[in-house]
């Protein structure tokens, strides 16, 4: 393993005061292979029985396409919404003191801790047309539960902690003097935020965004109760996989899985590249 690590490290190892590069890299590669790559390769091999045309056939099915579009679209919008409001929540929690701050802080983790089915049922109950929140929107002609909007609500709910928890430590560590320097150079509050604070927290914000997005794409339990699961309208891709499994269409289910896997990987890779760019001042 260390031999592998050494040969791998040949081109890009930089001398470092911290020892153990070869050993830790070897361990990380082996660990990821067993925990992540092995099950995934089984998933990728499964639809091979379908052949290329069979594989494309599964994909071109309009029901599958609609489900994929909903899963990725809603996950993306939910992650954007969470990035925005999560930033505000984290900001308030770090910057201001108010009564019951600890309790509010603990509340942020709840979507994490709740069994997803419980979350899904409660969300469905309150957002249903006769529920607390749903009944407020009904007169406006807006239905939330059992529509794509309901899917979005559930995904926003489960994604929030990722953004808040990624940002909090970074906001905490921001140097107060740097902000003061900006202010004394004549920057307005908004300019200080946009030009000084935001670039400093951008990598963490992107991390939170990527985590919230990834979780939302794969989310199942909390969504299916509120979604209504109407084919072509409010049916998410993970549910479609389950349906195919129940019909013993293992290859079809795996085909959808592979597509989700590839798309998620590409998107996360893209986020990673943006993140790298946002950290460009740290390296060299």
């Amino acid at each position: 393993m260390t031999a592998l690590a050494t040969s791998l490290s040949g081109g890009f190892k930089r001398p470092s005061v911290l020892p153990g590069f070869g050993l830790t890299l070897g361990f990380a590669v082996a660990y990821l292979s067993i925990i992540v790559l092995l099950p995934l390769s089984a998933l990728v091999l499964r639809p091979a029985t379908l052949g290329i045309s069979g594989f494309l056939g599964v994909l071109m099915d309009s029901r599958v396409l609609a489900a994929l579009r909903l899963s990725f679209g809603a996950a993306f919008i939910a992650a954007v919404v969470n990035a925005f409001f999560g930033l505000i929540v984290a900001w308030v929690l770090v910057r201001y003191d108010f009564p019951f701050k600890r309790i509010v802080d603990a509340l942020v983790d709840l979507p994490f801790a709740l069994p997803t089915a419980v979350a899904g049922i409660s969300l469905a109950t309150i957002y249903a047309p006769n529920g607390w929140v749903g009944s407020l929107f009904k007169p406006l002609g807006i239905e939330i539960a059992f529509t794509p909007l309901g899917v979005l609500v559930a995904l926003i709910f489960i994604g929030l902690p990722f953004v808040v928890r990624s940002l909090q430590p970074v906001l905490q560590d921001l140097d107060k003097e740097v902000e003061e320097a900006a202010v004394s150079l004549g920057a307005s509050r908004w300019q200080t935020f946009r030009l000084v604070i935001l670039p400093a927290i951008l990598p963490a914000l992107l991390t939170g965004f990527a985590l919230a997005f990834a979780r939302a794409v794969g989310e199942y339990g909390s969504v299916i109760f509120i979604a209504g699961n109407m084919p072509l309208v409010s049916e998410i891709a993970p549910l479609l996989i389950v349906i195919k499994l129940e019909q013993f269409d293992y290859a079809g289910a795996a085909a959808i899985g592979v597509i989700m896997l590839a798309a998620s990987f590409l998107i996360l890779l893209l986020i990673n590249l943006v993140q790298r760019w946002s950290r460009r001042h740290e390296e060299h």
Partner: protein
Amino acid sequence: MTITADGIYKSFNGFPALRGVNLSASRGEFVALLGPSGSGKTTLLRILAGLEFADSGRLLFNGRDVASQGAGERNVGFVFQHYALFKHMTVAENVSFGLRVKPRDKRPPKAVIDKQVNELLRLVQLDRLGDRYPSQLSGGQRQRVALARALAIQPAVLLLDEPFGALDAKVRKELRRWLRRLHDDMQLTSLFVTHDQEEALELADRIAVMSDGRIEQIGTPAEVYQRPATAFVYEFLGNANRLPCRIDRGRAMVGSLVLPAPEHPELRDATGVAFVRPHDLIIGDARAEGLEARVRQIFVAGPAIRVELALLANGEMLEAEVPHGSPAGELIAPDKLVTLTMTKIRAFPDAATA
């Protein structure tokens, strides 16, 4: 720009950090704020910059009250002790920041900004490093970026909080001379914080010595060094030996020695302390008249021989300096008994008897 601070008081959660500070600096003056840690130097500077607001007292810039002005409106350049550079911006972007955030109607066109940034970088001798990030610079270079950034807004007042604190002795010396020239060329009014007395004495037009939230004395380096107003100032500027004494009608009695103390003609038999600088202590033969003391340690390295002595009377440790090659040098050896005399002391009565 003239600055006048009048009775500035500031407390943090009941703890008084400034207790009635009066200070003024006239146009072109370079004033040092000197004082031990926690004496309120940074707090005062931050109040001048508008980063903190006084509980009471008045602050005038050119005679106008600036109490209601925020930090951005005061046209003050502030150099932070730890630079506070914008890490994600290049050196040039850091320097141009103050110009780029100006309101649209006052913002110079990009070409003008670029030109000014280049001039500033040349001024602080960093003209080739405009594209680097702060993490790629040395401490001294970062310091100069912070300075260039503060100068970019063409401030009338420059405030520097321990500008050389984190630098090694040699770079410190170079930078401070250079800063003094810059101050003169640009006709700034500058205040800088330091707790290095040598730096203050060398650099400043006037020194304000602070202690416990107050200014103990303010004056030219020569004034504060030669005529310290309080015991604190005497002890803080340069090494000093403390000797208990009695002060009576312009004379101070230190042990068996009677020395002139012309500052206190009015006192009658008051207790106090006499201070004597190490180079004003004269070491004599054991049989001579004076305070008896035993030599403890001798340090030969340095511009003069440093001798540590213990007074026989009370065991107090004193420090003396003897020029290399002087006759007194013959007298000293470890554990040897000597006598001490002095010609120049400065006596201060104890607070209670004053």
